[in-house]
């Protein structure tokens, strides 16, 4: 019975995972979290971090991997598994954060080169302050706008689908999305100028 249940949850190949990342596929994120997080947590624990550190490092690492996949900085190669890459990114991130033993960090960076990436182009880390600021501005939008934008840009739902959910014509939904983006743009870039 167990065997059957396990079998029903198919193993995802690296290709599946990579494409899943590009599509913001929810199941892919869950799969990676379940599979890779325990390894990262163990690693961070071993390097002296706590549960919350592990969680932060993993999420930042996954976001960085996702961004790199989208920008083309990270590409699938025969000798690198996606999960290996992610674990390395997280480990590197943790060492960078703690600035522990700089020689060890250098060593880690060399390892990353072996994995097939120069550290300088490896990753644009999620800048927490920037994203926090964006979040604050984003929340100033109406809930409806937030939902429309999230559905379209993150969940990658079609305009047709979104229109159906909100009981609108396709054209109306498209216009509404445009207006929401204009509003967000105005709020966000105006606030940036105040800095």
């Amino acid at each position: 019975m167990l065997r059957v249940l396990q079998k029903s949850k198919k193993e995802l190949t690296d290709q599946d995972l990579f494409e899943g990342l590009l599509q913001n596929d929810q199941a892919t994120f869950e799969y990676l979290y379940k599979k890779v997080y325990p390894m990262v947590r163990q690693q961070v624990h071993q390097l002296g971090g706590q549960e919350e550190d592990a969680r932060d490092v993993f999420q930042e690492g996954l976001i960085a991997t996702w961004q790199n996949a989208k920008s083309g900085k990270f590409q699938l190669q025969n000798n690198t598994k996606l999960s290996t890459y992610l674990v390395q990114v997280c480990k590197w991130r943790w060492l960078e954060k703690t600035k522990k033993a700089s020689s060890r960090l250098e060593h880690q960076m060399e390892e990353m080169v072996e994995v097939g990436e120069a550290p300088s182009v490896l990753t644009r880390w999620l800048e927490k302050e920037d994203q926090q600021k964006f979040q604050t501005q984003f929340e100033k939008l109406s809930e409806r706008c937030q939902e429309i934008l999230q559905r379209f840009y993150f969940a990658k739902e079609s305009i047709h689908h979104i229109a159906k959910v909100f009981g609108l014509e396709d054209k109306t939904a498209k216009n509404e999305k445009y207006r929401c983006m204009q509003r967000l743009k105005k709020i966000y870039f105006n606030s940036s100028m105040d800095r």
Partner: protein
Amino acid sequence: MNQEIFEKIEAYLQGRMSVEEKEQFQQQLNQDPGLQKIMEEQLALTNAIETEGLKNKLNSIYDHQFGTHKQKGNVIFLKRFRPILAAASVALLVLAAWLIFRNTEQPNEQLFSQYYERPAGLPTTLGIQTNEAFSEGMIEYKLGNFSEAQQFWLPLLAQFPENDTLQFYLGINYLELSQLDSADNYLNKVAEKEESKLRMNAKWYSSLVQLRQEKKDEAFSTLSEIALDTNPFQAQASALLEELSEN
């Protein structure tokens, strides 16, 4: 900026342009630094929206899978993003449903006919089986006249509302008549009777009804129960489970 430009930039960024359109647009970009800047802003915004979505998604996965401790930030986050979380979970449900049902319509029907074998019926000698109406119904059932059988059996329910043999054959009869909800209803009553000799039979046929109803999840769990127990349907249930998990 007008909407036309906005949509054009979006089509470009999302790779929805033809080769020609793309070349033309790239030329436009090269010639117009203003347009270039608008595009970069748009890209930055959509990236930020996506990142925000992913951040929320990861937080909620963590809370579901690993969250044994509460963080202050999370509570605020949950409150603020309830609508988005709700949307995300709906999207997730839709996705899950899609994953489960996408290519099962045909195969399930096939599996059903592959595994379904009508119970032969009873010799009419014992208990309710000595009842004349029940016997008449059983004869019709064996002849494949299910509507007639039903006319004999349904009135008996008033007299023997909890009789498992009656419930079981009524369930099968409804299944033969393709009235799946009623079939499921009667078979379930028997499947819930701990002491009934027909309990496992009822479970087995109930799983087949669920399969025909495209309730793959329910069929899966019913079959699992059968496969875990020693009974005459164990092997069949295991085999069907294997097939189900493959398609």
